[in-house]
């Protein structure tokens, strides 16, 4: 799947892919492969990134300063230093805002279904 440009600053909702990437690293920093696997798991297998799509999204999120790159202290067996990605404060607030938006959408839907059923 591809990840289109998402511009939360313009008041637009985040794309699902961007949302899941941010959600994936919300708790602790992760490297690219871990993010890829986590997003697949979080989305119940609906979102499967190609490597290019994932790093295209990561590059954009870094540019927007929603995430940051940190060096991993424990190098993998290949010996090459691995880079992890973590949410910045800006990224946290974007993610929280999106969660709030989704909650409000869900609340509206529940209210409407409640009205219809009740």
């Amino acid at each position, binding site marked *: *799947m*591809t*990840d*289109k*440009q998402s511009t939360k600053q313009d008041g637009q909702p985040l794309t699902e892919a961007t949302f899941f990437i941010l959600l994936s690293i919300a708790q602790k920093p992760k*490297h*690219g*492969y871990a993010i*890829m696997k986590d997003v697949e798991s979080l989305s119940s297998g609906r979102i*499967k990134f*190609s*490597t*290019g*799509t*994932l*790093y*295209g999204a*990561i*590059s*954009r999120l870094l*540019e927007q300063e929603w995430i940051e790159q940190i060096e991993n202290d424990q190098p993998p067996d*290949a*010996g*090459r230093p*691995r*880079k992890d990605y973590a949410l910045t404060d800006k990224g946290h607030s974007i993610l929280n805002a999106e969660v709030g938006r989704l909650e409000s959408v869900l609340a509206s839907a529940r209210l409407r279904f409640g009205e219809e059923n009740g």
Partner: protein
Amino acid sequence: MRIESFKVNTRPNNRGLRASKWIASLLIRLYAHSLRLYPAAFRADFADEMLDVFAMTLREARGTLAFLTIVWREVAYLPINIICVRQQKSEAPTSSINVWRARHVTRWSSMILSLFILYSLINPFVSPQTFAIDGLRLSLFFVLLFFTSLSMLLAWRWERLGGLLTIGGGITLGAFLIFYIGYFRPAEISLIGLSFIGILWALPFVTFGVMFYLLSQYPVRQLTTL
């Protein structure tokens, strides 16, 4: 990109056969080459990691189908990923000033050209004797010229629409001239000369049209963020 450092585990497991080692190595090499299509800055930042992740994904593949799915996903999304990354890099804040300059130059130079052409078109009607020579036969040419110049002025406000109309007008204008001169005065000019005249007339409009069309991809509000 250090391709040699990848060790792909291709031992068969109880879920099915893994791809052979040489296929995995070949795919990683091909993937490494495909990364050259990305912009240099992007490659410098991510190529090694992408290669790592791709190798890990192949290593985790269970069975031929999973293997093929991974390869298919990479190949299918490669063009769009490259376009997205290139677009993203071209939209970097450092290019804003260039966009502003390009828009400024395009707008003003197209405005001068449009007004000059429109004035030249109105002038023969003011002085009928200058319009008399071939005037009626060339009326379609004048109409085309009028609307193409108008499209350029329109592009000041609606860049995409105006740009596309200007491109279309320019091409039609060039083609019309080639047809007109070739049909009515075939003996006077060679085919190369005809093409040259057609291109010469079409070129400024097509150039301005393309410029406006490209500029339409950059919002005007960037002007205020400089």
